[in-house]
């Protein structure tokens, strides 16, 4: 036996019956599988990918300031249309969740009681998200649609 082994497991037999593991009737989940842990992770991925693709476009549209003022203004004026205005709304919704949930992930990783309170922190994330959007959404809609 290797000296680097932690121990041995006896083979299952009459004297060592396999432990019976039953699935719980209601899925309980773990930190990352099922329920809040998994769905916050799914949302973090979806928002992250969306923000990444906007960032690619945003670097290119901003680079037009190096082409000419006319070229930059022509493209940035499309950002002021109602459809793009709603797109900016969706972008801020995604960024708000990704930022707040990212801070929650950091707390889970580095705060000693982070994993214990990960569900409570998710509730706090959602609450702060709603507060953030309550401040942003009316203001932005007024800028886009006038009012």
């Amino acid at each position, binding site marked *: *036996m*290797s000296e*680097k*082994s*932690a*121990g*041995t*497991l*006896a*083979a299952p*037999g009459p004297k060592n019956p396999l432990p019976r593991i039953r699935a719980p009737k209601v899925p309980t989940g773990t930190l990352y599988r099922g329920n809040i842990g998994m769905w916050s992770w799914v949302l973090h*991925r979806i928002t*992250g*990918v969306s*923000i*990444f693709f906007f*960032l*690619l476009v945003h*670097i*290119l549209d*901003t*680079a037009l*300031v*190096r082409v*000419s*003022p*006319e070229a*930059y*203004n022509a493209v*940035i*004026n499309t*950002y*002021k249309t109602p459809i793009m*205005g709603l797109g*900016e709304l969706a972008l*801020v919704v995604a*960024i708000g969740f990704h*930022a707040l949930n*990212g*801070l929650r*992930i*950091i707390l889970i*990783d*580095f705060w000693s009681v982070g994993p214990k309170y990960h569900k409570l922190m998710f509730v706090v994330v959602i609450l702060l998200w709603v507060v953030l959007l309550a401040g*942003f959404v009316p*203001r*932005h809609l*007024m*800028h*886009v649609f006038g009012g």
Partner: protein
Amino acid sequence: MASVTIDAPRSSRSNGSKRSVNLEKWGWIYMRASGVVLVALIFGHLFVNLVSGDGVQAIDFAFVAGKWADPFWVVWDTALLWLALIHGANGMRTIVNDYATNALLRKTFTGALAVSTAVLLILGTLVIFTFDPCPAGTAADLLPSFCAAGQ
């Protein structure tokens, strides 16, 4: 009696070829370190560009030129460019590694990410640091007000 040997916890994967720098670990640390900074940088960016004043309606060439006349926003936007793009590209790399089961497909996507990130970082940095707020032959109403003084 047959037995199963279990490695000691935290033993290295292979004792022969140990990497001196654990890049995956530093990538993991980077996501968290840059993430904290990005929360401040992006919320500040969104507030100045979308919330304050006339919001998105106020953005045009003169608005950008006015911001970049201040070194504060040059540093802010450069940090935003580098931290956000590398953060995003590394996140996309994680997703590619999770879902691309075909080795060739994975290498293609990872390579495309590396190339596009390098190109956009160089392009974005050059745009910020070679920016001309008062290009010749442009109508004065498209330019920031401080251009008039020099003409």
